[in-house]
């Protein structure tokens, strides 16, 4: 089956998921992001690549950080950016998703950055644009349901590569609420595509997706065993707002077993890095001494996220 993210020349046309995205395309995105990092250190933090293009941030779900970093990325590429919080506008008046898109296309949109509560919504928009003969308009998935959050996965990969260089010798432990985490799903696909030999999922049975082992991941319920020898630790946010029913006893109980403390961190490799996609809950999944400690690369992740999103937008914007 043709990959709807790639055009007939194998170039990126939309970014919808890291699942099935070839390793060479992922590698090219990460390589392209490198020179974008230094733009943040200049007098004029802008390059003219997307001058005259219009980017619509369509957020059907709230996310201040993701929306802001996409907005900064587009503006540093000189695009015009329109932010729409659809949750409080058209759909509440009964307009369908694709009617909203058609209206924005009529306003000469060049790119859509889409965050949606339903898995597959960005894919639906991309298919609609291609079947209605508008191949020059691009879609970036900024998080859909429990499915994927590909730019977060890419910025996690960029961060790991920045500190650890080669994926082929790494042990990466992903800890906590994988069940509700599209970040974890994107990262796992990316890590396995790039040849990471050991990817571990650590958490209570109730917060690990049933099929996680089929992705090539080793499951640990005992955090001490799972962290042993890890090069990279990715802590996930406990997504209490997504939880229906009693999946865990209490945040305090969770922290006791799966919160990352200085003592537990000592079980990993001495030069291990600690990552977190944010927003983090101090004292729930991560202790402040770790979040602010020398192993933490949580704030560099945010900075790299802008460069990675600039790379994706600049690769899409030309085609």
């Amino acid at each position, binding site marked *: 089956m043709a990959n709807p993210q790639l055009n007939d020349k194998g*170039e990126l046309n939309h970014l919808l998921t890291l699942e099935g995205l070839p390793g060479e395309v992922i590698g*090219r995105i990460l*390589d*392209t992001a*490198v*020179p974008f*990092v*230094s*733009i943040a250190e*200049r*007098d*004029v933090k*802008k*390059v*003219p*690549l997307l001058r005259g293009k219009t980017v619509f941030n369509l957020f059907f779900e709230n996310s201040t950080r993701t929306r802001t970093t996409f907005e900064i990325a587009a503006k540093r590429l000189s695009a015009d950016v329109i932010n729409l919080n659809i949750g409080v506008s058209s759909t509440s008046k009964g307009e369908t998703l694709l009617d909203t898109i058609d209206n924005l296309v009529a306003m000469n949109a060049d790119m859509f950055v889409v965050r949606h509560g339903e898995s597959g919504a960005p894919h639906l928009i991309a298919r609609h644009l291609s079947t209605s003969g508008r191949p020059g308009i691009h879609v970036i998935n900024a998080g859909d349901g429990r499915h994927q959050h590909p730019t977060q996965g890419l910025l996690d990969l960029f961060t790991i590569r920045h500190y650890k260089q080669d994926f082929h010798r790494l042990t990466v432990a992903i800890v906590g609420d994988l069940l509700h985490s599209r970040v974890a799903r994107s990262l796992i696909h990316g890590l396995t595509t790039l040849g990471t030999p050991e990817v571990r999922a650590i958490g209570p049975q109730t917060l690990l997706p049933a099929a996680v082992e089929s992705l090539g991941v080793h499951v640990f319920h005992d955090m001490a065993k799972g962290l042993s020898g890890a090069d990279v630790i990715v802590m996930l946010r406990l997504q209490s707002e997504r939880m229906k029913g009693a999946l865990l006893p209490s945040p305090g109980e969770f922290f006791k077993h799966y919160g990352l403390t200085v003592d537990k961190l000592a079980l990993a490799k001495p030069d291990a890095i600690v990552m977190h996609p944010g927003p983090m809950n101090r004292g729930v999944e991560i202790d402040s001494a770790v979040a602010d400690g020398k192993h933490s690369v949580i704030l560099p992740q945010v900075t790299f996220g802008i460069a990675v999103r600039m790379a994706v937008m*600049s*690769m899409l914007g*030309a*085609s």
Partner: protein
Amino acid sequence: MRGAVAINAALVGIYSGGAWLAERLAQMLPGEHPVGYIDVSFYRDDYSTKGLRANVATTTLPFEVGGSRIVLVDDVLYTGRSVRAAINELFDYGRPDSIELAVLVDRGGRELPIEPTYVGARVSVARNLSIVLQRDLDGRLELTVEPSGVQGG
């Protein structure tokens, strides 16, 4: 160039050929010359038709651009479009006091009003050929003429 280039001028090479030449000029010219590197990919005027090429290098200007005297260095001057892009990029780092242009080879064919300050050689080759500077493992630089397909500078 000896005697003509300011003794503290920064030498900024355009990737990749110009970067090698800037390093070499910094050793050969009298004075202290900071060396910078510029990749003009983000400023090219053919982005919307050709896209962003792979392996963009990081522009590195390890000196204060504002108030500096800069010599841009490139291997081959052709249409002038790379130089236009490089000048635009330099101004996003600050306002230089002056910018000069040194090229190893000027092959004519300008499409913009850009002229070099220092020229190694003026040559004429057919439009369907490219002049390419290459560096071998020992650091020796060699100019070759190849069938086109490589982007013009």
